[in-house]
């Protein structure tokens, strides 16, 4: 091979790789860095970018203050940093004098606002746009009207995203719902909306709807900015982790009720009233004890199928993980005016409590985890026979039933299908708890010697 060729190849390779490299650098800067707001190729810019973010936040908060919008900080990263102890706080302040909490290395900061304080202020949005913020407003159906399915109003604002200098500020609107909680909607982009407006998967709020208690707010100074934060930050963060809210399937419920109209006899109306009272009493009592519960069996089916209580179900069923069992559940319910009707099983196995309020029964089933399934037990009082109801494991979501905020299994359909089979959507009036459920398994008999302790009927 001639010598000249070799040099030529060498030079060509060099030039092309140079060109490649330059192109790639250009591409990288343009496409990747801009998207995430991370200035990887500009390590010196890291501090300045914090300053820019801080300036952005300052401008935004000043605007909110001017329009008297009581925004509060809802950003998980920032709140997590705030909830840590003060020593660390001083450390960080030493290192980065400016923006150590609010600019937690993320291009997004989230705030929340009670919708009743929003009152449709176009002035605020206009002013923000004048200050250079780009705005993305996400609207959605009003769930407070959707509950009737026959009403349609104007779509309500759910989320606002403000963008300046590549930083995004999310404002989540929290609406009052009739179960005495705050609700925010899912963030869904409509056709024609800018999909690259923000890194949506980094948002703290919007993947799912959420339900929150009304937080108590305090005004404080964070990074030299006046910011409202929840008084109990860790509680708020804990709520956020389990805030996912499922709207009832009102539309399907409506079709169901057209097929099988609701019983409007006086007895059914009366039962629904009593069931509602009992459910809200249970929610209140267990809420005070911090025992999470979900609606189970027929009550869950009623929610899922018809967004109501099944009028012939005769009782209210709830589930509690055995890990959350506390002995003071029984005295708490007694104090709330219910009487213990029976107690089956023991904490280690098939525990079940039944309370009576007015003449409607409240059944509390305790659920046991076993590998990738969960199960609860049943006991026949007269024979001591044991039954086991097996469900695929599930996580818990919030929902609203009869204007009470309750939890339901997020994988509601799987849960219902396990319990009622594929024909869950057809009402069955004669139901035998020992044989009808599709997930019931015979589980032996309690030893007769232990009956006295394990089968208590009052």
């Amino acid at each position, binding site marked *: 091979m001639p010598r000249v060729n070799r040099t030529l190849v060498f030079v060509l390779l*060099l030039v092309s790789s140079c060109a*490649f*490299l330059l192109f790639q650098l250009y591409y990288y800067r343009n496409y990747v860095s801009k998207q995430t707001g991370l200035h990887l190729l500009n390590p010196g810019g890291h501090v300045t970018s914090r300053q820019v973010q801080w300036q952005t936040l300052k401008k935004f908060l000043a605007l909110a203050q001017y329009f008297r919008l009581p925004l509060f900080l809802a950003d998980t990263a920032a709140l997590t940093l705030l909830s840590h102890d003060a020593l660390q706080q001083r450390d960080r302040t030493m290192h980065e004098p400016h923006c150590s909490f609010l600019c937690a290395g993320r291009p997004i900061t989230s705030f929340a606002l009670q919708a009743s304080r929003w009152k449709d202020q176009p002035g605020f949005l206009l002013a923000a746009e004048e200050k250079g913020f780009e705005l993305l407003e996400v609207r959605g159906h009003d769930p407070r*009207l959707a509950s009737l399915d026959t009403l*349609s*109003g104007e779509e309500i604002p759910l989320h606002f995203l403000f963008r300046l200098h590549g930083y995004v500020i999310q404002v989540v609107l929290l609406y009052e719902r009739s179960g005495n909680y705050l609700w925010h909607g899912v963030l869904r*982009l409509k056709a024609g909306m800018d999909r690259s407006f923000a*890194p949506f*998967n980094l948002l703290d709020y919007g993947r799912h709807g959420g339900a929150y208690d009304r937080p108590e707010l305090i005004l404080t100074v964070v990074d030299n900015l006046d910011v409202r934060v929840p008084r109990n930050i860790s509680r708020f963060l804990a709520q956020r982790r389990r805030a996912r809210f499922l709207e009832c399937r009102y539309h399907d419920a409506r079709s169901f009720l057209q097929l099988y109209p609701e019983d409007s006899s006086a007895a059914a109306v009366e039962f629904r009233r009593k069931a509602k009272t009992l459910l809200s009493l249970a929610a209140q009592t267990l809420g005070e004890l911090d025992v999470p519960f979900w609606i189970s069996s027929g009550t869950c089916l009623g929610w899922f199928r018809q967004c109501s209580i099944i009028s012939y179900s005769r009782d209210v069923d709830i589930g509690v993980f055995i890990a959350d069992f506390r002995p003071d559940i029984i005295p708490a319910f007694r104090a709330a005016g219910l009487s213990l009707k029976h107690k089956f099983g023991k904490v280690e196995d098939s525990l079940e409590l039944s309370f009576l309020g007015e003449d409607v029964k409240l059944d509390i089933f305790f659920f046991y985890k076993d590998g990738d399934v969960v199960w609860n037990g049943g006991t026949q009082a007269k024979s001591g026979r044991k039954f086991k109801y097996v469900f695929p494991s599930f996580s818990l979501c919030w929902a609203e039933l009869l204007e009470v905020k309750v939890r339901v299994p997020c994988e509601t359909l799987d849960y219902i299908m396990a319990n009622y089979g594929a024909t869950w959507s057809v009402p069955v009036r004669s139901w035998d708890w020992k044989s009808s459920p599709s997930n019931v398994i015979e589980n032996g008999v309690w030893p007769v010697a232990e009956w006295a302790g394990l089968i208590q009927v009052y």
Partner: protein
Amino acid sequence: METWTPNPRAKPFIPRQQRSWYLTWKYRLTQRRSLRRFCQAGAVLFLLITVIVNIKLILDTRRVADEDAAAQEYEDVLPNMETPRRPASGRKVLDIEVYSSRSKVYVAVDGTTVLEDDMREQGRGIHVIVLNQATGHVMAKRIFDTYSPHEDDAMILFLNMVTRGRILIFTIKDEGTFHLKDAAKDLLKSFGSQASLNLSWRDMWTLVVKKGGQVFGEKHSKSPALSTWGDPVLLKTEVQLTAAEEAECHWADTKLNRRRKLFCSKVEGYGSICSCKDPAPIEFNPDPLPNNNVYNVPVAVIAGNRPNYLYRMLRSLLSAYGVNPQMITVFIDGYYEEPMDVVELFGLKGVQHTPISIKNARVSQHYKASLTATFNLHPDAGFAIVLEEDLDISVDFFSFLSQTIHLLDQDDSLYCISAWNDQGYEHTAEDPALLYRVESMPGLGWVLKKSIYKDELEPKWPTPEKLWDWDMWMRMPEQRKGRECIIPDVSRSYHFGIIGLNMNGYFHEVYFKKHKFNTIPNVQLRNVDSMRKDAYEVEIQKLLREAELLDHSKNPCEDSFVPDTEGKTYVMFIKMDSELDTSTWTELAKCLHVWDLDVRGYHRGLWRLFRKRNHVLVVAVPISPYSVKKPAAVSPIHLDPPPKEEGAPVEQL
């Protein structure tokens, strides 16, 4: 990457003479092994970096792609169903077809039927359609039953309100000339109609005209005889559209005027709202109330498809002192556009309701949905103010409620607070500061307590298949449970609706037209706290003690029955043996010209009203507990219903 290895088979290097300076150096450099190695290593390093950056790029692109996929989750699953409005496609001409006949009328614009009426026993008279001269959109549809009296006046009023330049389409169904007077015919002539002066009994007629401009077409067929109708006529014509700018006014560009502009481009018949020169206001800014206790109480306006009524109603509501527009929601029964346009004109919230069931049950279901939604939308509210679209609202409506609303919380024997006094006519109501307790539920502008609705009414609200009136149902003893409502002597609302489910012109004339309506702002109510259950009894006892006995030997229907005094309190006793024995009261109500269709507005068998500026207490003996106040010598007045006339006359066409 392969490493660079020198060619082992290369020829050994032989230096040559006579080389250029450049080549000499090149060879010298290449000759030096170390330097060559260095270059080679540099190149390799360079290529390696290229590769690393490449890989990083690929990874990053991948991540971005992932993020995009993740962002997909944030996309609306439903495709956008709204298709863009059909572009005007540069067409400047509309094809219009108008048909007039005995049993059917229709109007088609560019092949789209905008009016079709072939229902029997309905839609008699002159149908009028107004089109926007720039877009061809239907801006108003009206029927004037000019077979009946006074409808032609309404038509003149309407036609005069239509902006100049709009396209008007007229067509007659069945009969439209019997009460079409000369004034209306002259107006039509002034529009350019050739036939209007000759229109007569059972003629068929169509006309397409631009107001204040050219006639696009007119057809008329005379009825050959009294008993027959004219032949159907079908008019086909073309209308030239004008430029959009010509059809619009040039108002200052404000937020309010943008709403106005939108409204005026869509609908017609709202008079000076759309006047170019001096448009009527759409924001009223009434004075706020000091200590307004109802500022945060939601207001539900129950509406149907009577947009002109809704317009009038909202105007009076938004002018009332202490109104909070943020709390107002208008619930429209059905997906009608024009009522929604009216709501948006005033910048209020509107909610549309898919109609359920028919007639009275439809209204009843609409009420239920509206009330439920109101408390859903305002979970913190303890009350809701319920209004209807055919009410005028008194300027001190909110002041009246603000002074009384605490009673609903404090007194469990109360069912509602209503702005309406069933017996409060111009000649029977006097004192705007006076309140009553009554055992009926008057409605027509009232306050509902959330707990009553949620705990009692909502769960057993009549289901769609029950064709009940919601208000009749609410008045039933099972619902009312002996509770009472607080009402003013002088009503704070005025019922102006003539068209309605249970309403017609005659009915309105007799029972609603002369109703007294308060126009004084900020009336300070008297003795509000004596409206509580026990305090009210004390009050009544005091009144009965003070009251002078009227002369029971006189005929209560005579004017002289109540002396010509002023400011005195009188008492009279009428016979009422049981709840069902209503004949005396009904006869009395008839001659007093108050509500006589059923027994309303009493408190424990006691009616309170004014005659000749004197307060008159009417006690039903013996069912009222106040009968004990009757002197033994006085026998209660007894009136018999007049004998029923045989074969009541039935109006026939």
